[in-house]
């Protein structure tokens, strides 16, 4: 991925990272700033899609870069620099979502049946673990978009409006429509399993 706010230039992440690594202590901060600044716009735009609001996007992006500054020496060059920075942004964003408790919705109670469904022991053994069994169940019950929206909302607790913007869902009710259909399909599948002893 290319940093967003740059026209093609001879500076690369690799060169700037090497410059930071070899910089004198008093020049390290500026060297790191040069590297990070290439991503201010990309991270800022992504944070805006997540929060839907500039000021909170700037606060989130600020935390991302402060964390990245503190951990820059842990970047080993095993991945692209942009991917490393993304992993910090992603974790920071999801940690924030998890801190903001969502009010519980009645229709979610019904989901408990599905989340705690137990496959029969034979199937469980065949799939090695309950998590894998559940992944298979989701794969068989939901389409890919529903699974993704469902996982981001219930696994990562991202708000629906953030998911709508991040995934560029253009239908009128955005992520909510996918959650509604996912819940309906899961509830139906769970009933089938409970009623017939059927297993995916």
């Amino acid at each position: 991925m290319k940093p967003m706010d740059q026209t093609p230039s001879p500076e690369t992440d690799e060169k700037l990272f090497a410059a930071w690594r070899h910089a004198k202590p008093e020049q390290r901060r500026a060297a790191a700033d040069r590297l990070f600044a290439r991503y201010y716009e990309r991270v800022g735009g992504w944070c805006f899609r997540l929060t839907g609001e500039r000021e909170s996007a700037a606060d989130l992006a600020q935390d991302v870069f402060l964390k990245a500054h503190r951990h820059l020496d842990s970047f080993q060059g095993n991945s692209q620099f942009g991917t490393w920075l993304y992993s910090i942004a992603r974790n920071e964003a999801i940690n924030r979502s998890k801190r903001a408790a969502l009010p519980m919705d009645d229709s979610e109670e019904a989901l408990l049946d599905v989340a705690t469904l137990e496959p029969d022991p034979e199937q469980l053994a065949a799939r090695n673990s309950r998590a894998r069994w559940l992944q298979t169940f989701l794969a068989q019950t939901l389409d890919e978009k529903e699974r993704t929206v469902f996982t981001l909302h219930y696994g990562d607790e991202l708000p629906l409006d953030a998911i709508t913007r991040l995934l560029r869902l253009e239908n009128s009710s955005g992520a909510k429509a996918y959650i509604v259909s996912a819940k309906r399909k899961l509830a139906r599948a769970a009933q089938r399993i409970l009623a017939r002893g059927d297993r995916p």
Partner: protein
Amino acid sequence: MNDPRDAWREALAATPDCLALERLGEPLTAAEREHLDTCARCQSELALFQSFTSDEATPEETRAGAWVAAELHRRLDGAANVTAFEPRRRAPRFAWAAAAAAVFVIVAGLWMEKREPSLGDAGVTNVYRTGRLDAVAPLGDLAAAPRELRWNAVAGATAYTVEITEVDRTLLWHSETSATRIVLPPNVVAQCAPGKTLLWDVAARRGSDELASSGVQRFRVAVPVPGR
């Protein structure tokens, strides 16, 4: 476990087979690809990663990204010591905006009382990017609503983007020009009510590169004081 969301959070967590985030930007092996085909966790991680790497953006997102980038330069660049620059843990947004407005009213009141220099002369520190962009007017307390925004030219700039926002950063108006001044439309002038603080900033651009930013400037049309 009473909350089904706890159950789902656990159920949807990554397993030891799941791809490390660092792998998302790399060509995947056949085994990784096979896992990805059936794993909702990894599929959602990939979708989230692609939302980050995609260059597709609405005009609003492009403007917001540029605004946040300018804000990051202002907040972070040149800070002497990162560890001393801990993330701000903000009070809820509206409380913050209200507090900021209250502080402004008090501070502005004191300034006006003492007939000290205008707001624009104090309290706002600008951090510049590669060049310096000086906002000329309006700054601080004004006798009447401004009719235009003015700033000094930046060498190499082909365009200037300007924005006026409320103190809570709600966007009121934005525009672009190649000149170093821009006339405000009547509906914006009408929003410059006495006593209401507005913020503005201007950024110099060459193509998609931002050369310099003025940082956030404040102005306010003074409330007429009887007997003065």
